[in-house]
């Protein structure tokens, strides 16, 4: 093994019962470099990571069937981790090789303080006293730039935000200055701005400590921004390997190319004000969709929503106003907790507004009773984020898609079936699948079912709350294309809620940026994305990883440690009024 090689995996095969999760995988890692392992969900990335530390053997019955994992210890000796006894492995775990996981909330033990959990590793591997370990832990918290580290040392994980928890995980993993850090989707659960900060932090610490990183992710943007080399996996198998530049510029495997094509790239639609489907192989050349009319379908005026909370009220939505025309898509973007879903629920009248008015096709529906609301519900429908959770698992899909017609009695008993079949065809499903149950469909197919159900009553408006966020990129592209197709065919309006800027760019005519319950910027998509005026929008956009290694380092990243300010205010707090000023035609920005 070359002198600067830390890890060499050869012919690794991992099996869970009858499932082969990783098959004959080989790769290596050199000192100080960052290796990304990419691939779709279920391709075996996490299993590979766990296999290196031999953690698959616990609980589940994973076994390493074949292969070796050679590791150079800090003292220079090389060991095959596959053949080491538990005792030796325990000495390596957390010391020479450490790991961080995707879910920062569930990866920290909820019943121990943060300090305790960091110090534990140090006491274990460094053999130092508890007090000294706490000192070091404090030092580490400072290094990962946690504000007020003395106090944070004594807090419990649940008292921290997701971003902070992930920093704690990093502090814990780096406490013993490992030679390898394995990071399994370390930023997937985080908002883009936090994600950017976290990646930047890891990069800096890597420089400082000289740690080699194995980064597992499915986000090509993150790969492009951070990796030196890339290993691509597909269905448990190795696909290709190479320097990041080459992989992006000249992918050799067909699979890699498909993967890269499906990745939405922010800025790729700067030339048109209209949405545009993804170019997908086998599909016709993507056509631009028709321009929208200016007939308003939805008008929202001064919408306010507050929830009671411990210590006051959550100001979830503050004076939100916008209009949406027929055939138009308004995208609402913003970070987690900024109030996007609340707006959707308010518009759908699933939540009662605290104040404000909602006009649907000219009718004020704000105060309507459940019964009076019923006819209006036919005009607008919703598609939810989680295709797995939004279909009742106990009923056949035909029944589910037909349900709106039964509730609203828009079709006779006999014609419901035909209409369901028609809807199936519309979303690209075969009508003979009607008698199946939701769990017999894939995620993408389920989302099609949800769309079919939403279309059942011939609505004019569809609210899509993170409708594609849970899907793999290739599936995501298909669904987006379907939505655009339906829009041009049926003249639908979409209120498209997402945190993914690149997807937003593909689908929307206009964009509204929400922050702390307010719309801070709203305007034509091209204007807002290319020419953001509000500082928050700018921050948001700069944080979006760009799936292009060549563009790496072009944008300066702040390492600001601040979390989103809390939307919780004491009872009786009056928020400052939102004043929008025009920044261009149809482009408005909140005053700062």
């Amino acid at each position: 093994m070359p002198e600067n090689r830390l890890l060499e995996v050869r012919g690794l095969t991992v099996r869970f019962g009858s499932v082969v999760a990783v098959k004959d995988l080989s790769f290596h890692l050199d000192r100080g470099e960052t290796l990304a392992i990419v691939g779709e969900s279920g391709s075996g990335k996490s299993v590979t990571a766990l296999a290196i530390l031999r953690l698959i053997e616990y609980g589940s019955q994973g076994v390493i069937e074949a292969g070796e994992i050679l590791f150079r210890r800090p003292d220079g000796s090389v060991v095959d981790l596959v053949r080491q006894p538990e005792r030796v492995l325990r000495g390596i775990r957390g010391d020479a090789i450490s790991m961080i996981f995707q879910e920062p909330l569930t990866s920290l033990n909820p019943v121990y303080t943060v300090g305790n959990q960091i110090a534990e590793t140090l006491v274990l591997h460094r053999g130092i006293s508890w007090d000294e370990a706490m000192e070091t832990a404090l030092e580490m918290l400072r290094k990962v730039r946690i504000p007020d580290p003395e106090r944070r040392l004594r807090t419990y994980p649940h008292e921290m935000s997701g971003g902070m928890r992930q920093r704690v995980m990093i502090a814990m993993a780096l406490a013993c200055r490992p030679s390898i850090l394995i990071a399994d989707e370390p930023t997937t659960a985080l908002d883009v701005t936090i994600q950017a900060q976290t990646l930047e932090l890891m990069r800096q610490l890597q420089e400082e400590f000289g740690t080699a990183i194995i980064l597992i992710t499915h986000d090509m943007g993150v790969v492009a921004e951070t990796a030196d080399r890339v290993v691509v996996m597909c269905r448990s198998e190795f696909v290709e390997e190479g320097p990041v530049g080459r992989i992006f510029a000249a992918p050799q495997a067909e699979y890699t190319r498909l993967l890269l094509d499906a990745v939405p790239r922010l800025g790729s639609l700067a030339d048109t004000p209209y949405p545009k489907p993804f170019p997908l192989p086998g599909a016709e050349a993507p056509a631009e969709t028709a321009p929208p009319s200016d007939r308003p379908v939805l008008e929202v005026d001064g919408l306010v929503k507050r929830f009671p909370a411990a210590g006051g009220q959550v100001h979830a939505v503050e004076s939100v106003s916008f209009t949406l025309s027929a055939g138009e898509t308004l995208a609402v973007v913003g970070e987690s907790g900024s109030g996007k879903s609340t707006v959707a629920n308010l518009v759908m009248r699933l939540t009662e507004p605290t104040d404000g008015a909602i006009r649907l096709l000219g009718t004020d529906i704000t105060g309507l009773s459940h019964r009076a609301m019923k006819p209006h519900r036919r005009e607008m429908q919703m598609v939810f984020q989680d295709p797995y959770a939004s279909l009742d698992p106990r009923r056949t899909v035909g029944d589910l898609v037909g349900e709106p017609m039964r509730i609203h009695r828009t079709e006779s008993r006999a014609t419901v079936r035909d209409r369901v079949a028609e809807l199936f065809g519309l979303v690209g499903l075969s009508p003979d699948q009607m008698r199946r149950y939701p769990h017999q469909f894939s995620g993408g197919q389920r989302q099609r079912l949800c769309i079919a159900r939403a279309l059942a009553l011939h609505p004019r408006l569809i609210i899509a709350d993170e409708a594609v966020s849970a899907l793999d990129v290739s599936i995501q592209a298909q669904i987006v294309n379907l939505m655009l197709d339906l829009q041009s065919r049926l003249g639908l309006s979409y209120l498209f809620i997402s945190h993914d800027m690149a997807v937003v760019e593909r689908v929307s005519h206009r964009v509204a940026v929400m922050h702390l319950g307010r719309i801070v910027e709203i305007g034509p998509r091209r204007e807002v994305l290319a020419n953001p005026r509000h500082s928050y929008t700018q921050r948001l956009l700069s944080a979006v990883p760009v799936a292009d290694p060549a563009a790496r380092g072009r944008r300066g990243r702040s390492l600001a440690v601040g979390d989103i300010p809390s939307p919780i205010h004491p009872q009786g707090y009056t928020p400052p009024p939102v004043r929008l000023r025009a920044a261009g035609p149809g482009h408005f920005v909140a005053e700062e």
Partner: protein
Amino acid sequence: MTSIARAVLYRTAHVLGLLLAVLVFNFLLIHLAPGDPAQVIAGDMGGATPEVLAEIRTRFGLDLPLHEQLLAYLGRVLTGDLGYSFYFDRPVTALIGQRILPTLILVLSALVLAVVVGTVLGVISARWPRSWFSHALTVLSLAGYSAPVFWTGILLLILFASVWPLFPVTGMYSGIGDRTGISYLIDVAHHLVLPAFTLAIVYIAQYSRLSRAAMLDVLGSDYIRTARAKGLGEGKVIFKHALRNAILPVITMAGLQFSNLFAGAVLVETVFGWPGMGRLAFESILRRDAPTILGILFFSALVVIVANQLTDLFYRLADPRIAGKGSR
């Protein structure tokens, strides 16, 4: 500070509200039961003499309007008067006062036994979920759960008091010998073994299942993976990281089931002649001694409420996530 004070105040009000509800419920029961309330109260007297009935009527003001009676009743309870047992010819409070301690000893030792043994068994079987031990425990816990407690008690009694006379048959003390010091405690403990174990069996079964499931859950969680990735040994992983999380549902369950445990004591005390409230309940049932039974019901509710509050506190200590929040 003020928030703590408010929490305490809230909790106290909550507890008092519950107790008040139990009292009103008791009161209504006497009045809703078929027949003359005076007869119900006299209950045990059989052909209660007119004098006794008259005395009850004046004593309980049964000729007053209902709401005044209720107020008077609540007033009496405030002064510690839970009524008078005409059968035992003694105030109910005095009767219960003598019996509460043995019951608490029995119930608490059974609870501790159940939680400790149940958790240990559950943890062992969760650690090796495919071992014969785990399978055996699953079967045994179902069996322990399915046998009627009084029946198990009778069989254990015959087995361990008559066939193999290892434990005393009945009661709480052997009667001879001094009633202070270590030998006395040993005597009581010796008498406690069979009843406490009998009462605990069902709960050992339940808690072992519960803690097994919780432990399996916890062992599959991300933070256990984190702990292992740190290089911690199995002991630390299980006992420091997993156990404290896995025991939370057991605590919750123990709190919720305290009242069942208390009720189970009635049967166990009856079988083993344990001189507690449960047997008093049984005896007063035989005599249709309504004031005593209602007193016992009230007292048990009180104990259960206190126990629930303690469990809650315990839970808060064990789980920092709910520490700051209001009452469950």
